[in-house]
């Protein structure tokens, strides 16, 4: 560990050379994924036992705990750096074998190699796995490859090269025009041009300006920011310093990390301390005269704080409620000063753009949305995890080529993209080229990039209700359209899901949704109705089936089910009779049956039945005018 401050770009290059030389002398090294996902599967124990075994065998092996390697589902992942052998689902007990066979004798352990679900062939290296083969890693290039707690690893991998280039070889205006030329769009959701934002803040005269990194990734179903903060924290810091240089007059930066991400906060703080020690943060960075420092702010659990103005109030120690814009935050942001707020992924895109140039960046992705995008691929796909793909890839490629298809080879129904601000993409748009503009055309939104895949057993009305219940709880309550509107919409959706839907409900949802979109104060409020409106747009028939036919086509809404006891398997144990709070289970002629009039469809009986003989069935009733429905129950 060098405790020397780097005084210029030359010092940095010397340090890099030294580090690379040291790496060559190691006989082997092995990467163990220690992202939150693999940690949950016990990867820290694997690191320990690998180190112990290597020491026992007298091998000079470097065990490198890395950030997320992406294929979380198959974790814990272990990769040998020498020949790229890729092991999945590794156990701490496998450590002696890995050290002895793979690292010592260069033999592979078949059992730990990932096999192709179709051909059964075992992939030897990362490149042979389709999940990785289709990806293009720009932001994630270090994530999963370096030890996030080591600045030496980052520098050895080419880190802070872009910063040195910007500070010593470019004027702030040149940096700015490079970012503008790259057409880097904000990865946090709306896709606003980052260069334009920087320019706006640069133009305003002020003694103090702020750079903020938005890591308050509140969208359920998204974890790319967490993975970058955890796995490659220096990339974010480097991006922020470059932003500070381009914008000018900014001495302070904040990284607002979500409170639910303790590991991200920890790694970020370690990285900041290390960068300060080397003089990459603080006064006179790399001898350029630039003064800039960064601080981590830990969120306290409010989804709304992902909205830029709310986030700034939260940093100021206030209630995180958005304010109307203009003035935009580039003019009056944090503490009333010009502020640039970018998302984690956006800032991590900055160093590669400066290093390789805007033309290179524009060569990836689509014309309107250059570059790559990280998606958190989850839900009913075989390979869940973190992927980075060029913009313009189709949803179908993501699901089938990278994701490996739907679990149990069921039918794909929809992809939910963009979390509670986004929408659903149905089957007919499987070949849609994903970028910021194409998604908004089909009524969805990039959002932060959560991609939840749903199959035929997921009810779209229920999913819409789920998102609304989230936005309703998380609404800050400042503006009535969002506060009252979402709660009204949630009421209607709950009624539909629980079998109390009325004719006209769909139209009412559309009406309220449109009003919220037009009148809510902030971006999150305006986009809150999106999940409902997009499911109505593509799955109106499902809504109608719920309302008119008391039928849930996906068989997911328990309240619309009909309960029946299969008497041939019933033991007459009477457990269901005891548990039923509505006295709906009656004994007649030596067998038990459920009286639908009294049954509340709570499903408690299914839970207690020892022989699983109570079945929930979904029957399509002939479409009836809803007014006649309630009467049978009241009689």
């Amino acid at each position, binding site marked *: 560990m060098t405790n020397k401050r780097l005084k210029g770009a030359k010092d940095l290059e010397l340090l890099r050379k030294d580090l690379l030389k040291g790496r060559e002398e190691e006989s082997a090294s092995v990467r163990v994924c220690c992202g939150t*996902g693999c940690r949950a599967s016990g990867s820290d124990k694997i690191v320990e036992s690998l180190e112990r075994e290597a020491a026992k065998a007298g091998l000079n092996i470097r065990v490198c705990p890395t950030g997320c390697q992406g294929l979380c589902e198959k974790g814990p992942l272990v990769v040998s750096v020498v020949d790229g052998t890729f092991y999945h689902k590794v156990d701490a007990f496998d450590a002696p074998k890995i050290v002895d066979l793979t690292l010592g004798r260069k033999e592979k352990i078949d059992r730990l190699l990932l096999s192709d679900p179709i051909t059964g062939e075992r992939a030897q290296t990362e490149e042979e796995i389709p999940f990785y083969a289709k990806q293009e890693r720009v932001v994630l290039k270090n994530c999963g490859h370096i030890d996030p707690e080591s600045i030496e690893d980052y520098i050895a991998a080419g880190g802070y090269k872009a910063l040195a280039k910007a500070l010593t070889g470019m004027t702030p205006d040149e940096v700015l025009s490079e970012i503008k030329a790259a057409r880097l769009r904000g990865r946090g959701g709306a896709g606003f041009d980052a260069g334009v934002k920087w320019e706006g803040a640069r133009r305003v005269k002020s003694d103090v300006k702020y750079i903020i990194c938005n890591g308050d990734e509140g969208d*359920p*179903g998204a974890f790319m920011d967490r993975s970058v903060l955890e796995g490659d924290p220096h990339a974010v810091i480097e991006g922020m310093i470059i932003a500070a240089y381009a914008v000018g007059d900014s001495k302070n930066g904040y990284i607002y990390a979500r*409170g639910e991400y303790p590991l991200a906060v920890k790694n970020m703080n370690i990285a900041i301390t290390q960068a300060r020690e080397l003089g990459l943060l603080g006064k006179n960075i790399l001898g350029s005269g630039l003064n800039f420092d960064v601080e981590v702010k830990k969120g306290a659990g409010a989804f709304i704080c992902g909205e830029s103005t709310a986030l700034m109030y939260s940093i100021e120690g206030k209630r*995180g409620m958005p304010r109307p814009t203009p003035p935009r935050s580039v003019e009056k942001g944090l503490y009333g000063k010009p502020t640039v707020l970018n998302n984690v992924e956006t800032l991590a895109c900055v160093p590669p753009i400066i290093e390789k140039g805007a033309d290179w960046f524009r060569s990836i992705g689509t014309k309107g949305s250059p570059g790559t995008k990280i998606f958190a691929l*989850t839900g009913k796909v075989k390979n869940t*995890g973190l992927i980075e793909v060029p913009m313009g890839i189709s949803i179908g490629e993501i699901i089938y080529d990278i994701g490996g298809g739907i679990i149990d080879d069921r039918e794909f129904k929809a992809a939910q993209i963009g979390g509670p601000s986004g929408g659903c993409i149905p089957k007919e748009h499987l070949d849609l080229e994903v970028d910021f503009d194409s998604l908004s055309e089909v009524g969805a939104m990039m959002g932060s990039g959560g991609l939840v895949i749903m199959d035929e057993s997921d009810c779209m009305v229920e999913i819409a209700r*789920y998102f609304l219940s989230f936005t309703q709880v998380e609404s800050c309550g400042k503006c009535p359209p969002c506060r009252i509107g979402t709660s009204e919409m949630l009421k209607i959706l709950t009624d539909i899901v629980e079998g109390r839907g009325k004719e006209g409900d769909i139209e009412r949802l559309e009406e309220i949704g449109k009003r919220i979109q037009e009148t809510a104060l902030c971006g999150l409020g305006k986009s809150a109705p999106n999940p409902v409106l997009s499911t109505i747009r593509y799955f109106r028939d499902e809504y109608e089936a719920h309302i008119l036919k008391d039928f849930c086509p996906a068989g997911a809404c328990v309240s619309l089910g009909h309960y029946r006891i299969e008497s041939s398997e019933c033991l007459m144990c009477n457990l269901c009779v005891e548990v039923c709070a509505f006295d709906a289970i009656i004994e007649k002629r030596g067998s038990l049956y459920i009286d639908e009039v009294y049954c509340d469809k709570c499903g408690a009986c299914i839970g207690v039945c020892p022989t699983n003989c109570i079945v929930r069935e979904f029957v399509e009733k002939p479409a009836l005018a809803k007014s006649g429905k309630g009467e049978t129950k009241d009689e």
Partner: protein
Amino acid sequence: MGTCACEQKGQFTDEDTAAVKSVLDGYGQKEGELVHALQDVQHALGYLPKEAMEMIADSFNLSFAHIYGVASFYAHFYFAPRGKNIIKVCTGTACHVRGAKDIVIGLEEELGIEAGGTTDDMEFTLETVSCVGCCALAPVVVVNEEVVKEKKPKRIVSSVRGSEDDK
């Protein structure tokens, strides 16, 4: 300490006062530090008693109402004591479609409390959380800040009880 947890409820001891003081000593009066100060005080005491918030108000030279206003805005602040073990079930989208609801119901039955509640013996608090960012392992449960892969409610509870016995 041999005293029952419920007797301690609502009692603000001298030790607590000292703990809050030592946390606040590290902070100035900058309002921007308020959320962090609240987080640290809560970390020390497990929740935010009224007395502690009054001390914070004095220390930051802000009104009690202001402190309560900020604290009550954020979901991570609690105004009542919580259990020794905190089980959070993630109900994010990915966990939702992979059956998080069943885990919540199972844990509710196993612990005899509703989500958001604490058992009478102050051993367990059960909560739901919107997303912990482990979507690829969905559904997930977080026990005392550690993400666990175990999905069977009975085993989750017994493993917590078991690891306690080890100590």
